[in-house]
């Protein structure tokens, strides 16, 4: 028990060490650029982290306000997109015709730069909030469908035979077996599309939306060196938003699919 705890700490410990090392390296790099090499506009290349953080604290209310706009729209689109994506996965698992018809487009969509549509969508509807929701939903939808469907299809033949031997209705079959088996895939899809959803929202903002963290990013860029720490703060905030959404999904996953191998407390040791 203590051994496991110690090991757990050891794993997290190296993670913390790595993060600290990178931060140190960053500070060293900033010091080198600004004070040793004396490059022009050093802070737009690599600023001192502590100055970025102090700027972040200074502008914290604005950052939180704009960040919340981006995050809120992203998450709305993200939830709607995943709901539609999951429903479509179920529909595709129910009907071979639907699956055969849609799956080539699903696969092709993985190879297509969907985010390129962001400016077009904003160009068409000219409503920032709606565009963000729409784009976030759109980028979420495909990875969720594909991964959830993969989960449903990974069900073993004998599990299906077992349910058949109980003469389970289609509804029961989905409730007891297929939806459960789809969950790990669903979460894999959600984790893939979470950063995409945020990116999509930010891109809509860069294309001229009136508010959001992306707007703050662009406007602070325009003011050049004067606002450079502000700009880096927006970068940090958007990273934090991405990590926050990812974290929420991971926690949900742990709570809803505790049976998955990676959550087993024993921990399968890799050699």
């Amino acid at each position, binding site marked *: 028990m203590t051994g496991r705890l110690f090991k757990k700490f050891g794993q997290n410990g190296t993670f913390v060490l790595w993060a600290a090392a990178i931060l140190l390296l960053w500070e060293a790099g900033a010091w080198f650029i600004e004070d040793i090499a004396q490059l022009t506009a050093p802070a737009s290349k690599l600023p001192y982290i502590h100055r970025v953080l102090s700027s972040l604290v200074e502008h914290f209310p604005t950052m939180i306000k704009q960040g919340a706009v981006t995050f809120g729209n992203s998450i709305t689109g993200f939830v709607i997109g995943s709901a539609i994506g999951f429903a479509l996965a179920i529909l595709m698992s129910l009907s071979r015709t639907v699956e055969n018809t849609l799956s080539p487009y699903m696969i092709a969509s993985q190879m297509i730069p969907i985010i390129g549509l962001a400016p077009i969508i904003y160009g068409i509807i000219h409503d920032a909030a709606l565009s963000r929701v729409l784009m976030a939903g759109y980028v979420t939808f495909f990875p969720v469908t594909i991964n959830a469907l993969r989960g449903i299809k990974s069900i*073993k033949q004998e*599990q299906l*035979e077992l349910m*058949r031997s*109980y003469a389970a209705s289609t509804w029961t079959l989905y409730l007891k077996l297929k939806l*459960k088996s789809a969950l790990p895939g669903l979460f894999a899809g959600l984790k893939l599309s979470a950063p995409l959803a945020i990116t999509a929202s930010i891109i809509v903002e860069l294309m001229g939306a009136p508010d959001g963290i992306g707007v703050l990013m662009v406007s602070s860029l325009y003011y050049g060196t004067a606002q450079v720490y502000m700009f880096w703060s927006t970068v940090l905030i958007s990273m934090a938003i991405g990590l926050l959404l990812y974290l929420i999904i991971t926690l949900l996953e742990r709570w809803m699919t505790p*049976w998955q191998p990676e959550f087993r407390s024993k921990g399968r040791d890799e050699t």
Partner: protein
Amino acid sequence: MHLSQAAKKAEIIVDQVSMRFGKKGHEVTALQNVSFKIYRNEFVSLLGPSGCGKSTLLRLMADLLEPTEGQIMIQDEHPREVRLRRKFGIVFQNPTLFEWRTVKQNIELPLEVLGQKKSQYSALTEQLIEMVGLSSFKHYYPWQLSGGMQQRVAIARALSLDPPILLMDEPFSALDEFTKEKLQLELLEIKRKTNKTIVFVTHSIPEAVYLSDRIIVLSAHPGRVHSIVDNVREEGDPSHIRESERFHEMMKTVRNCFYEESGFLDGQTI
């Protein structure tokens, strides 16, 4: 046991069943003209080498497959009717437990599917868990159990609807020899207590001889009934059967089906 077979009630009738898989022109015949009867409360093994279609035969009985020709009747009904009325329990080689369910929840699965209320069956599941000796593990997840324990859960799950017939597809073949012997003994005990009709697919001669009342020996390519060995198991304490003279006589009889007659092990069968 000593009633004449004609007077006994035929529970399962397999009549001229053939089964072919694959595309036309490249068909593989898994079963050819297979006919036999299984009587009520009998323990019958379907014994044969791989490729003899014994698992296919079991799936035909369970209405998981449909025969290309011929038919199967269970209690004078088509297997589909039997399945729809949940009158058999099935155990696969793989325990096929749902990994998101605990031992107890896995055993309760068929009862849930049937739409029963939890209050109706919780006493029953407790009893089943006790029967398979997993009382202290009932809240464990499948991955926390050994292979033998997992298969015990699968057996308890098959018994939870109290079906008259138990279909078992090589349930012990993935287990180690010690666990296997233990579970075989437990299965005989369950059989004694519940008196179910059991159809047991296996490729192990000692296992078939140890467990069965009758053995239906199948040959491969295509799968056919080679012979039927009657009165296999003797009465008495099952824990000492393996040491008895009769057990070894029976083993020899069944082995002879494979080795002496009709060149069973010639050429393609191995």
